[in-house]
């Protein structure tokens, strides 16, 4: 693909829009809360994109990607603290690169062990390595700081042009700068022969071997490079929060990045970005409303795995093709018809979950009562449970009916698309990885 083909007018316009949003977003939402949210989104975007280099591009399902993120963060903070008393000063602007170098180095070490196999075995081994590093964080308190982690101060000097990252806004632009640079680098990498070969290794390793490449070596290279970008993200998080704890290395962090990448969509480049934004906003915004958000998000994740393995980006790509063909009108009525029972089902489930939480936490809160919108509910009474139960049952029944008409309309749309020669663009998912 040439640069001209990649940068047609529409894409260029889209990229300019994104750049503009990144530039002015912190000015429009200048409250501290939004700024820290945007910073977190930037960090998680790099992390999710680096993860998708493995899962989406190479077909490697890693359960231990936090290792590179966390070690990058620890390395960055150690250098930052080391600089405090030393005569040599590295510019803070470039410190994330150091985190990246740490991620790369550990990618070289651990990748050698993990990439000997692909598929499910890789998943298991990456989990084992991840647990090993997480467990050793308590063995070496000198490096990992034990339970409390290690902290530092990112304002070390005057900095370049007086930018010493003393204010959150300066930190935001540092994160934005690295996020854009990393995203561009990861995209460029996917267009190189290595990126293409990684796709080939994902789809058919035997054939790659047949034409004279070593799939194991390609997997290794991808893990090392993904480790680099995860390390950059870790370094940025170290600078942003000025503290790293063992949680950065934990299975929780590894799990969150899987959720982000997969829910966003591993089949397209921007899918993980959508996931990173969504999960971060949920973590920060919804967590304040209900403690049950991981449960809802887990359910949502299962739904995506079962019914839309292309993730949100996959759904968007499918509908864009329909929209361009002007067939969205065919789908809309069926969707509207399905939306009502889906909403019933969802609100029924939410009401039940919230009541259960109220019931469990009742002794601490002093009451089992709660109010959802205008509906007063009490987790301790049978009457409150019957209504949501009925909603769930009825919703399920009606949804299964409505879904049939949605499927019918999709069949018609697909037939129309095929007749016009524009095949339905299905999201690429590494189907068989064994």
């Amino acid at each position, binding site marked *: 693909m040439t640069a001209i083909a990649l940068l047609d007018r529409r894409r260029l316009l889209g990229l300019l829009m994104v750049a503009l949003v990144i530039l002015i977003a912190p000015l429009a939402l200048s409250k501290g809360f939004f700024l820290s949210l945007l910073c977190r989104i930037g960090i998680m975007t790099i992390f999710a994109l680096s993860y998708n280099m493995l899962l989406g591009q190479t077909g490697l399902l890693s359960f231990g990607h936090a290792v590179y993120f966390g070690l990058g963060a620890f390395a960055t903070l150690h250098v930052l603290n080391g600089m405090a008393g030393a005569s040599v000063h590295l510019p803070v602007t470039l410190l994330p690169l150091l985190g990246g170098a740490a991620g790369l180095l550990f990618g070289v070490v651990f990748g050698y062990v993990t990439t000997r196999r692909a*598929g499910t075995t890789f998943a298991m081994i990456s989990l084992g390595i991840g647990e090993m590093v997480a467990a050793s964080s308590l063995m070496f308190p000198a490096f990992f700081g034990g339970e409390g982690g290690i902290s530092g101060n990112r304002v070390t000097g005057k900095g370049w042009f007086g930018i010493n990252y003393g204010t959150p806004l300066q930190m935001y632009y540092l994160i934005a700068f690295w996020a854009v640079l990393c995203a561009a680098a990861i995209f460029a990498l996917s267009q190189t022969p290595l990126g293409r070969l990684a796709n080939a290794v994902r789809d058919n390793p035997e054939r790659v071997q047949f034409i004279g490449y070593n799939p194991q070596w390609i997997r290794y290279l991808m893990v090392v490079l993904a480790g680099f970008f995860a390390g950059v993200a870790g370094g940025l998080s170290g600078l942003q929060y000025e503290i790293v704890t063992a949680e950065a290395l934990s299975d929780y962090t590894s799990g969150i990045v899987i959720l982000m990448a997969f829910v966003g969509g591993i089949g397209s480049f921007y899918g993980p970005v959508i996931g990173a934004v969504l999960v971060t906003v949920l973590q920060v915004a919804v967590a304040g409303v209900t403690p049950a958000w991981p449960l809802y998000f887990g359910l949502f994740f299962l739904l995506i795995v079962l019914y839309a393995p292309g993730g949100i980006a996959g759904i968007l790509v499918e509908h864009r093709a329909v929209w361009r063909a002007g067939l969205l009108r065919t789908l809309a009525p069926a969707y509207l018809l399905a939306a009502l029972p889906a909403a019933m089902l969802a609100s029924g489930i939410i009401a039940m979950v919230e009541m259960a939480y109220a019931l469990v936490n009742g002794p601490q809160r002093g009451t089992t009562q709660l109010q959802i919108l205008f509906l007063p509910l009490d987790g301790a009474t049978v009457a409150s449970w019957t209504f949501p139960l009925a909603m769930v049952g009825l919703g399920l029944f009606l949804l299964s009916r409505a879904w049939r008409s949605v499927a019918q309309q999709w069949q018609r749309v697909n037939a129309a698309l095929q007749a016009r020669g524009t095949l339905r663009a299905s999201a690429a998912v590494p189907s068989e990885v064994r």
Partner: protein
Amino acid sequence: MLTEVGRGGGAADPPTCALAPGLLAAAPGGGVEFVFISLLNGVTYGLLLFMLSSGLTLIFSMMGILNFAHASFYMLGAYFAHQISRHIGFWPALFLAPLLVGAVGAAIERYGIRKAHRFGHVAELLFTFGLSFLSVEAVQLIWGKAVVDYRVPRSLEGTLFTIYSTTFPVYKGFMMLVSVGMLLSLYALLTRTRIGLIIQAALSRPDMVQALGHDVPRIFTLVFGGGAALAGLAGVIGGNAFVTEPNMAAAVGPIVFVVVVVGGLGSLAGAFVASLSIGVLQTFMVGFDYSILDLARFLGVKLQATSSLARLSLTQFAPIMPYVLMVLILIFRPRGIMGARET
């Protein structure tokens, strides 16, 4: 013991921990005492690990599904048993809880995994990963985040025997009995019965078994439910011996994966050997409070005690031992101890 293994923190198993300081140097019979008790504790723990890993490895070799949520069934078993034993006692719970967990497992296979299977093994793995995530949340929703009061039944409290000064509780003996009983019946089921024969055939030639008129998908559901029930049983007898809390699945899950890799993917015998060796090895390491520094002192070498690595004792090393073992196995013997094929 199970809980501190994955996390690397927390207190060690009381019997071994009590032994650790006065090790060898203690009473005249201290060495024998330590070795014997550690061996018993290690074997108990190893058998429990096998109860978990046998189901996982059976499911894997049969369906190619790596069940990430396998340890969640262990957790469910413990919580179900806790709930049932509160109402009708421990003995019914011992039978009912694994059955319930098995039913849950079979339903998950039938209505979830089979759907995810259309999209390949990665989707299956992600589905079970989502389940493990969800199960923790669900358990917290129903039973809360704190440790629940799931206790050893009164009839099994007390001491089985005493060696020198260390006691061996009755319940540990009971755990061994259940594990060995499970092991023998699993062996008998797989080799001596008709259904076992079909399961074995479906392991290697599912298409042929299907062609002979057997309902292979149903066998898969059965095996999945059976594996879940075994994990549930491990939870019933392990949950009260150790601790029943929402974190228990995450603590034991990775170790079970390690056992399966070390033993050789799909090999029951390998999983058995790996479970026992990891169980015994780890229990011994928890008891040995020695470091490289002590070794140097023993050999008469003077070593500067500045390096934290040199001061690291075997006890501290115990939590990561299984993972180091896995890495070594992968480098030097990729097919595991008894695996038939390269993993």
